[in-house]
């Protein structure tokens, strides 16, 4: 005869632990079971440095031409254009929209949540 597979409640009843008036585990939550009005502070990952390729191209050109500026004028101009573009992009980016990685920083999230708090009691 194979080992009879009883459902779990049968085994537990048969073991007799409930006859000693064992109470089911009471839930004693350390905090109230409700959504808080703030999120935890998360360390914002720093954005990547811009214009690194242009800079490395310019430095390669410098290495070849002994750091003089006249033969490398095109690379230098490209670097300046890249820097200007990055500067305008930084100024124009709106902080209230999602960042490039699709996350809002925790401070902005907290500000939004403070505007629409969780209702804890009805008056």
């Amino acid at each position, binding site marked *: 005869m194979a080992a009879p597979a009883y459902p779990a409640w049968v085994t537990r009843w048969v073991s007799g632990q409930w006859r000693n008036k064992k109470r089911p585990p009471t839930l004693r939550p350390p905090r109230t079971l409700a959504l808080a009005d703030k999120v935890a502070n998360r360390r914002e990952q*720093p*954005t*990547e*440095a*811009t*214009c*690194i390729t242009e*800079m*490395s191209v*310019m*430095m390669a050109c*410098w*290495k070849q031409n002994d*750091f*003089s*500026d006249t033969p490398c004028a095109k690379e*230098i101009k490209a*670097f300046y254009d890249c*820097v200007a573009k990055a500067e305008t992009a*930084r100024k124009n980016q709106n902080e209230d929209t999602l960042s490039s990685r699709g996350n809002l920083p925790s401070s902005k999230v907290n500000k939004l949540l403070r505007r629409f708090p969780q209702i804890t009691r009805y008056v």
Partner: protein
Amino acid sequence: RIMPVRWSRYSPSYLEPEVKKESYQKSFEELTEEEREEMELKAVRPIKAAPPTLSSSVFSDPMICKFTNMMMKSGNKVLARNLMSQTLEAIKRKQVEKYHKAPENEKETIECNPYVIFHQALNNCQPIIGISNITRGGKTYQVPVPLTDNRKRFLAMKWLITECRDNKHRRMLMPEKLSQELLLAFNNEGPVIRRKHVLHKMAEANRAYAHFRWW
């Protein structure tokens, strides 16, 4: 034109004075819509007093003014301006002497205008990439960083002035030494250009740390 000033005693309704003569010589029909609105605004709003350094003459140059201000010590603008004019005169004298001594075919290549020489020398002295100290994990690294135009101009002028003040003969006066340095910088030689190259070499040596930048 915005004047960045920390504590201005003027109320925000005060407008900047317009110094250029050309803007007053235009007749009413030539103005665009925005310019007409600006003129109407200026008729109603109060105007700030023009500072003594602001001039409407054709001979005034904002770079030269900035350079004189940087050369000025303890507010002695009279001395700084005299030194600057003596420098420009010295440059002109040297270049004219060279011009008269040069053979015929080289006479066109010699530049005699001291303002052109000053601007070209400043452009040659401006560094293209700078270095900033960034601390990561307790250690400070020298990270190559792009500079703004203002910072480049400031560094070029500062290097010129410190070079002239430190490395000179005991009895040599500032105009002569400055004219020497400006002519060397105009030809891409001299200690200031060398300092710029040293900065570029340091930036090139530290290019591995370029990723530490976050802007």
